[in-house]
C-alpha cells in the first residue's frame, strides 16, 4: 500500500546562478524525495524557488533531510529551508 503523503515545502533563496535547481533536485532525488510541484521567481533581486515535495519515501527523517539540504544550499550559495506544509496551510488558509 502506498504511504500517506508527507508534504514539505522547500524554499530556496539567493543570488541566481547556474545549477541551483539541478543541485537541489538531485539531492532530493538521492534521498527518495519526490517533487510534487515547483515554482520559481525573482523578488527584490533574489532568485526564489519554492518546491512542494513528498517525503513519505525519504531515506532520512525530516530533521536529517533539513541538514542535508542546508549543506547543499551552502555549497550552492543559497539559503534552503524545508518546512512541513501544514505550517503554511495553518497560517495562510482558513
Amino acid at each position, binding site marked *: 500500500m502506498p504511504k500517506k503523503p508527507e508534504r514539505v*515545502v522547500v*524554499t530556496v533563496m539567493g543570488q541566481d546562478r547556474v545549477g541551483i535547481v539541478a543541485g537541489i533536485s538531485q539531492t532530493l532525488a538521492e534521498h527518495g524525495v519526490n517533487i510534487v510541484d515547483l515554482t520559481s521567481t525573482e523578488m527584490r533581486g533574489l532568485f*526564489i524557488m519554492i518546491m*512542494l515535495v513528498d517525503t513519505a519515501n525519504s531515506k532520512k527523517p525530516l530533521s536529517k533531510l533539513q541538514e542535508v539540504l542546508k549543506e547543499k544550499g551552502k555549497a550552492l550559495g543559497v539559503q534552503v529551508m*524545508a518546512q512541513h506544509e*501544514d505550517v503554511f496551510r*495553518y*497560517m495562510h488558509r482558513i
Partner: protein
Amino acid sequence: MFSTEEVIETFEMISLSHLNVRTVTLGINLLDCADSNIKKMKEKVYNKIVSTAGNLVKEAGLVERKYGIPIVHKRIAVTPISLLLESAIRGVARKSAVARSIEIAEVLDKAAKDVRIDFIGGYGALVQKGFTKGDTVLIDSIPEALASTERVCSCVNIAGTKAGINVDAALKMGSVVKQTAIKTKDRSGIGCAKLVCFSNAPEDNPFMAGAFHGPGESENTINVGISGPGVIRNIVEKSPKTDFRALAELIKRAAFKITRAGELIGQEVAKSLNVKFGIVDLSLAPTPEKGDSIANIIEEMGVEYCGAPGSTAALMLLTDAVKKGGSMATSFVGGISGAFIPVSEDAGMVNAAKKGALTLEKLEAMTSVCSAGLDMIAIPGNTSTETIAAIILDVMAIGVINNKALGVRLIPVPGKKTGDAVQFGGLFGRTVVMPVSKFSSNNFVKRGGHIPSPLASLRN
C-alpha cells in the same frame, strides 16, 4: 501549492521579525503526590514530573524543526504547592514546616533541571479569600526557596473579582518581595523576577512567573503562549500613514497568522506527548532582542517614546486587534491573553524609562487596557514594604474591578537607587531603576483585612 507571497511572508516573519512560539508549557497535576510523609511526597513529586515531562524538550524540538518555527521555551506548570503542603505539615512546628516547603522547592528545581527546562511554575498559593496553614507556610518560605533554587517560579493569587482583595496578603507579599530581593542581592535581587502577585490568576497561564496548573484542570495539558511583537511592529512600520481603522485590520490579520502557528505547534506537541491540548494564550510577549518590543510598536504608531500621551490608546488598539485576530485562529483561547508590558524584558520599554517618558504611574494606566500589570520593574532597594504592598494593591484593584488577570513583579534592587542601571541577564534583560512615589501609604496598608468583592462580581 502555496503562493510565493505566502511562503516569503512566513520566511520573513520567522527570520526577520522573530516570529516564534514563546512557550510550550506542560501542566502537570501533582495532587496525587500529597503525603503526610515528606520524604515520600518528594519522591512522588520528582518521579511524576520526570516521567510526565521527560520527553517534553525532545518532542517539542522535533516539532519546531518540522515546521521551522522556533519554540523559545519549554516549561512546566504544576499544581499550587500549598495544596500539597497541607498534608505534610500537619502537627509540625512552624520552622520545620517552612523547611519542608523549601525541600519541595528544591525537588521541583532538580526535576526541572533533569528534564532540561529553564523554569517550573506553581510554587505558589491561592489566598484571595484567606490563608490556610499550608498557604502561610509556603508564603513564608518563598524568599529562601527562590534564593536556593534556580528554576522555580512562584505565583501567589491575592485578589479576585469574586473574592475581593486580601489586603493582609498584599502586606505579607510586600515583605516577601523585599526579603527575596535581599536574599538574592548578589544577583541584583533576581529572586523577585521569579515571583508574582496576581489578581484573577488564570489556571492555564503558560507564561512565567505566573504559570501554575490549576485545580480545575485535567491531569496534564499543553498550553501555548504566542509571541510576535516583531511581526506586528514590522507591519505598523510599513504603514506610517494608515488610519487606525485600517491599521487595526492589518494587526488582526497578522495576529491570526501568529496565533495559527501557536495552535499548530501546541496541537502537535500535545499529540506527540499524548496529553490534552489546552489553550493558546493570545498575549504578545516581548523579549529583550532588538525589535521584539511592545514599546516599539506603540512608538511606530506615532508616539515619540512609549509612555508619552497616546500610549494607552495605542496599547488598547493593539491588544484588542490581537485578541480579535487571534480568537479566530485557535480552538480555545485562555491564559492571560493581552499584550505584555514587562519593562526589563522589552528593550523599547527600558529605553522609554531611561528617557523619563515611561513611569510607574503611566504603566499602571496602560495595564488597565492590556495585561501583565506592573511587570519586571526595578525599583529603589530602599522602597518600603508598605509602599510595595500599596503598589500591589493598586494593580489588584484594577484587576478586580475590571475582571482582569493582572500581576505585579517588582524588584527592589538592593543598594540601587533611581536611575541606576541593573543587569539581570538572559531573558530577564537589563533595565534602569524607576522612581517610586516618595509619599507614604503606611497607614493605608496597615488597616489590613479584606477589600470586599465589588458590585462587578454580582453577575448572576
